């Protein structure tokens, strides 16, 4: 399982590197400040495809796994953004494809699983200076999740019931205040 995740991440990195050597485009590197406040490391990059479209990829990592609260997830998002005025300036509409692998839970229940989803988001980017911008973005996604729920407080001698679920659910796909640097 771990190996599979690593493989997927590698493929994504190669994709990004491939875009980097593509001719003639400007690209940015992003980091989400709001996510950092919630303990998630979210970094990503955009590559301009045309004057109003850009391709973006983001990586999420939240390492929190404590007995009282677990919000451990790794996610990869690949998407396109349509900018209304110009690349990296002003309003934009984004569509993403998401893969999340998570281990969430509280004192009693733990959910372990993965989800595939598509998301739609809207944001606005302000220019701070020639190379820096700050954007605010919010998005919602539809996920197909598959996980196993278990009760962690079950004693050693009791029966443990593991529930496997599959569902479609709505959840935020993007939420944050990102700072980006333009190359």
């Amino acid at each position, binding site marked *: 399982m771990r190996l599979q995740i690593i493989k997927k991440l590698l493929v994504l990195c190669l994709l990004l590197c491939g875009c980097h050597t593509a001719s003639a485009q*400007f690209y940015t590197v992003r980091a989400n400040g709001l996510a950092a406040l919630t303990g998630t490391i979210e970094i990503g990059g955009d590559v301009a495809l045309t*004057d109003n479209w850009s391709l973006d990829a983001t990586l999420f990592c939240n390492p929190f796994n404590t007995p009282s609260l677990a919000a451990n997830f790794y996610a990869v998002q690949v998407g396109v953004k349509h900018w209304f005025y*110009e690349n990296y*300036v002003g*309003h934009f509409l984004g569509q993403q494809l998401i893969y999340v692998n998570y281990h969430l839970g509280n004192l009693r229940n733990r959910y372990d699983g993965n989800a595939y989803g598509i998301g739609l988001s809207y944001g606005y980017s302000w*220019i*701070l200076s*020639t190379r820096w911008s700050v954007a605010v973005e919010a998005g919602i996604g539809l996920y197909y999740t598959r996980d196993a729920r278990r009760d962690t407080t079950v004693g050693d001698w009791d029966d443990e019931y593991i529930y496997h679920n599959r569902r479609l659910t709505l959840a935020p796909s993007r939420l944050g205040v990102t700072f980006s640097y333009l190359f």
Partner: protein
Amino acid sequence: MRRILTASIIVLSLYALFGCSVTGGLTRRQTSARLAQLTRTQRQFQQADTRPQIVTLRRDSTVIYFAPTDTLDGERVMSLNIEQVTVVAAVRTLPERMGKVTIDFIVDLPKELLGRSRSVVVTPFLHKFGEVVPLEDLTIRGAMFDKLQQRDYWQYDTYLWRYAPDSTRAEQLFNRFVKFPRPADVRLDSLVEHRSHITYYYSQEVPTDETSKKMLITLQGKVTGIDASLYTMPSSDTLTYMISSMLSFVDTLPRYQIRIIDKYVTVKDRNYIQFRTNDARVVDTLGGNGRQLDKITDLMAQLVGQEEFYVDTITLTASSSPEGYYARNNVLARERAHALKHYFTRRYGRSIDTMLTVKWIAEDWVALTARVKDDQKIRHRDEILALIRAEKNPDKREDEIRRLFPVDYAYIRERIYPYLRAVTFRYDLRRVGMVKDTIHTTELDTTYARGVKLLQDRKYAKALYVLNDYNDRNTVVAHLSLGHDAQALEMLQTMPQDAVTAYLQAIACSRMGRKEEGRAHFLEACRRDPRMEYRGNLDPEITELLK
């Protein structure tokens, strides 16, 4: 139901977000910039009236204020002029000085027009006779707009630096990256952070020409948003300026000059025809003969053929140079003269046979003397001249010169003799239809008329050049239009006094700072002609005198 409600809310919010453009609101409300004339106090302020109403004196840390005072009910009170009303007429009169007129007005930009993501460009247009001239723009950009421009220029430069494309591609790239190029050649290019009401004082010096009596100013403007939406402002009010100039004082009465016409006129023509040595035949291929003979014939044709004069006689004089014996030269000259007459008669026609008389000069000592006198290169010039005067026999004369002054003689023979072998034509003409010997007539002085026209066309320097010698009112007007006040005043003092000269003296005195004198002249002008009082309103010099 709930779903429909949520769906409609989402659709409406999306429309609200994306249906708006940056300049949409402006297009709905049709906001516009305005033009305004300056009020009297503003005009005075702009002319830097250096007489403040309150004088401030600072000494160390104390500040003392001086204000003009008045007495009201026995008490001294501060009296200040406050302009209450700011309504100004749309038509204004401007004086033209030195061929230029300064047009000024206020451009008023309301707060709603500006914005962070917008660029406002306002262009005043000057309407002169038949042509519309755009003046320099005023540009006001928002903060976000400016940042976008910076980023676009940076992207363009980075692209060039990375990929170094050729010039046509570079131009395409410029158009692709830089959506809003920075303005160039503008009167004002400013960045505004916050929305505020902006008024700008615009002043432009315009050269005047013969068609400038009325000038109009209109305003055109547009607002561009960063989403490339464009809002063109509706046309603004028109400001009208009437140009008043010194030219209303130009004296347009025509001038006449006296011309003397003679009944008898003489035309003289000297040509050099070459002959072979000791030969009298006219050879038209020898040397420059062809051209000279053509020249003579053309002149003859011209004079005989024209109808203003009768040709009484044509006298042909052939002269020879002194070398050789006098007797031989005499015969040669006579034969040559007759040969020429024969040639011309044959060439031109029998009609001149009776008109043409023939004379000959065997040895042209007169011309030789004249030439020697003027020639610096002959060393023994005075001796030679004395010899010529003393010796009566021409052959002996020549021998003496050759013997005594060989070098000079060689020079004379080489250089001067050719000019003595000449054919002179003298045409005696008589004017057709004239009985008296001379007539004095008056004709229109076209030079003066041309000068007056140049003055009216505002080509002052050229007009002065033409009119300078006449020393009359038009010369004064030309001087004043060019700013030569002292000369104008001097000239005016010598001219007979009337309303116009008194008025012009008032203007000249005002310009030179002699206010009392100017006032006296202006009052004199008004006394002689009451209309001068109204004319005084149009000239700023008179307003200055009456302050």
